[in-house]
């Protein structure tokens, strides 16, 4: 009985989240981001970082949140809306990342790029990812959800292992991977010769770096990274807008119908195959964009032995499940919660634990970690867990996934389906007779635009 109150409060909170509507969604996102910024700034300060260090902590968190949000939004279009169970996300991201490197990388480096302007590189990367998506869409048209899962995860492994294969070394760098990516747009903004690491800053760069220096932030790289992250947030905003429009429209309505009952959608005259192809291509293009901006331009280095493993796809799925698939706002929230709290925060734990000066022993096996428990000494076990924090993170994620599927299949934040229409369906302008619109003042539809 005693846990009644918090649970009630939680469900009340969930109910409020679930109402949707443009303004609540925006404020929810804002509140979440501010809270995460505060948390990570606090972590940085607690660890005794200087201003640049704290900014760096917050920046790398924001970067990860942004790129996750991109990928999760893309997946939401396919899975959340149309119910297409694509677990090859990592592969499509790989296509985007390699493509932007190939199209816009320097022709003089190895593996050589074509040296095309960056906008062409990015759009090209999206197009190529869309075309690969089209190929993958054929299984999507014909296969049951679980077969599609297997086909897409196989597709993503085909892409990754092909990138790894030596015959493709001139394009992908094979096992060595590639670092030949165009300078990121933030560098272009601040440097005279963005591709050159030793280049002098241009006038804009001087001015901006100057401002940061006056606050004691001397690391120009950090300023560049922060600028890039802000640009990323703008892209996230655009993709969010695009997804909302796509979802809150008759097009999105058909997608939802396909997810619910494809035969009924067909029986109402919808050519579901065309809708599936389109959304598969759009989603893959956006996944390609995420790959291009994250591992490509963002990290500036890609290696198929460590990047784009199927596990990346699962991270993105978990983020979407946390946020509640079918909801664009939920996608961004889920991306933020996953990237910041589940993925990044644990990496700070060993640093934080170190500040307690516990002199943690570092047992070199589980046995050495557990046997001291018999003599009531928990420190070796704590030390062991901290030392294995990477594996622990996976275990926590796995447990969370199972728990979510058992208890909250609609997502941690609850049933957040957004009504698919370009207008508020509950409103009636031209009412005949009694008004139906005054029905408790409920509103429907993500009609946040037009």
């Amino acid at each position: 009985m005693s846990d009644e109150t918090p649970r009630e409060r939680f469900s009340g909170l969930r109910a409020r989240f679930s109402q949707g509507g443009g303004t609540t969604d925006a404020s929810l996102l804002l509140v979440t981001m501010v809270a995460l910024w505060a948390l990570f700034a606090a972590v940085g300060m607690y660890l005794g970082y200087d201003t640049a260090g704290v900014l760096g902590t917050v920046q790398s968190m924001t970067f990860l949140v942004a790129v996750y949000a991109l990928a999760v939004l893309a997946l939401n279009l396919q899975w959340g809306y149309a119910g297409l169970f694509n677990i090859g996300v990592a592969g499509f991201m790989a296509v985007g990342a390699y493509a932007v490197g190939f199209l816009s990388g320097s022709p003089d480096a190895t593996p050589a790029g074509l040296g095309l302007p960056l906008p062409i590189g990015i759009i090209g990367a999206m197009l190529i990812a869309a075309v690969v998506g089209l190929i993958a869409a054929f299984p999507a048209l014909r296969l049951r959800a679980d077969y599609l899962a297997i086909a897409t995860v196989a597709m993503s492994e085909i892409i990754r292992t092909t990138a790894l294969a030596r015959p493709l070394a001139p394009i992908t760098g094979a096992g060595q991977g590639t670092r030949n990516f165009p300078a990121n747009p933030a560098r272009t903004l601040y440097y005279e010769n963005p591709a050159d690491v030793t280049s002098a800053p241009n006038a804009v760069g001087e001015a901006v770096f100057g401002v940061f220096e006056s606050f004691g932030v001397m690391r120009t790289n950090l300023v560049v990274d922060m600028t890039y992250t802000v640009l990323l947030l703008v892209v996230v905003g655009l993709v969010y807008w695009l997804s909302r429009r796509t979802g809150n429209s008759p097009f999105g309505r058909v997608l939802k119908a396909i997810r619910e009952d494809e035969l009924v959608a067909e029986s109402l005259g919808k050519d579901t195959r065309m809708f599936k192809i389109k959304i598969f291509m759009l989603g893959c293009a956006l996944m390609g964009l995420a790959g291009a901006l994250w591992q490509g331009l963002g990290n500036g280095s890609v290696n198929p032995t460590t990047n784009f493993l199927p596990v990346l796809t699962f991270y993105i799925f978990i983020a979407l499940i946390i946020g509640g698939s079918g909801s664009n706002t939920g996608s961004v929230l889920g991306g933020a919660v996953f990237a910041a709290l589940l993925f990044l925060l644990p990496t700070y734990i060993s640093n934080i634990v170190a500040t307690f000066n516990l002199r943690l022993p570092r047992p070199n096996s589980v046995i050495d970690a557990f046997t001291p428990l018999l003599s009531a000494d928990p420190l070796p076990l704590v030390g062991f867990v901290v030392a294995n924090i990477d594996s622990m993170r996976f275990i926590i994620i796995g447990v969370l996934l199972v728990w979510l599927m058992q208890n909250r299949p609609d997502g941690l934040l609850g049933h957040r389906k957004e009504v698919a229409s370009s207008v508020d369906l509950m409103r009636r302008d031209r009412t005949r007779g009694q008004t139906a619109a005054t029905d408790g003042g409920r509103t429907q539809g993500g009609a946040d635009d037009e």
Partner: protein
Amino acid sequence: MAGAVAVLLLLDLLRRLVDGSLGPSTLLTYLWTGLVIGLIYGLAGIGLSLTYSILNFANFAHGEYVTVGAFSGFSTAYLVAGGGIATLGNLFLLRPAAGQVGVSITSAPFAVVVGLLVAVVATVVVALVLDRVVYKPMRSAEGISLLIASIGVAFVVRYLLAIVYGTQRPGVTAGTQRYFVGEALGLGRFIVDAHQLIILVAAAVLVVGVHLLLTRTKLGKSMRAMADNEDLARVTGIPTERVIRSTWVLGGGLAGAAGFLLVLSQGTIAYNIGWRLLLLIFAAVILGGIGSVYGAVLGGIIIGIVQQASAVWLSGVWSDMTLPVTFALLIVILLIRPQGIYGGVETT
């Protein structure tokens, strides 16, 4: 289309044999190693196939059952074979060097047999515990929810093993007897080692055992009925808990055996060996037809041989393309014959 490609490749194979660019012993080696590794895929595949058709979900944690079998079996084999070399704890954690302990069928046959048995039993226990904790509360859930939950299970099991055993990839078997069989038949040198023979024997015994179980016992018959006929399963409602448990016992046990035999054949062990095998096992199962026990074995053998024999065409740096080609084959099978070789015609 796919048929034409297969015929062309076969013709090309013949041409290579005739013009001598491919020695018969090389081809025999490909076929033999392909058969051995394929039997392992097949053994693991039977379990995946059974759980897929009876519980109606694609179990993405099945690879982890393979890994559990590998580690539990080899810990046991180390404890049996390596008494006195190191502390029990270090033996269990596979810390001593492989050469020192000497686990192989020729030097320590008892350790291998006990290891195999423990691999089966331990994996069965793990599979049953996981069913009780994870899947039982979700019996009425959709296949996709179960699939996602199984991904969670895969994470938990894989990284628990990583924490216990570490993330390195140690060698754990000692060398064993090799036999040169080809010369006697006038086909050039062609090597068969004792572990491969053990795998062949063990796989044959297990497959025949499962066959008898499924065809001769009442329980087996009801499992088979459900596996063969999805509609029937649907009509008869949610399968009984007893059938589900037996499915996990069979599937887990075979996966565990496959894991142990896999390590016996390749010599090294790592926390992610099962995960890396998962897609290949899926390929075997889908090729054979989901729900079909013999299909899974046959599918496994085909996938194993295709992987090995692809070296005829994919040589040198192109050998890196073996895996992409195998996965592409999986997608092609899904597209052109999703019901597999043995599968009947799907009904609505």
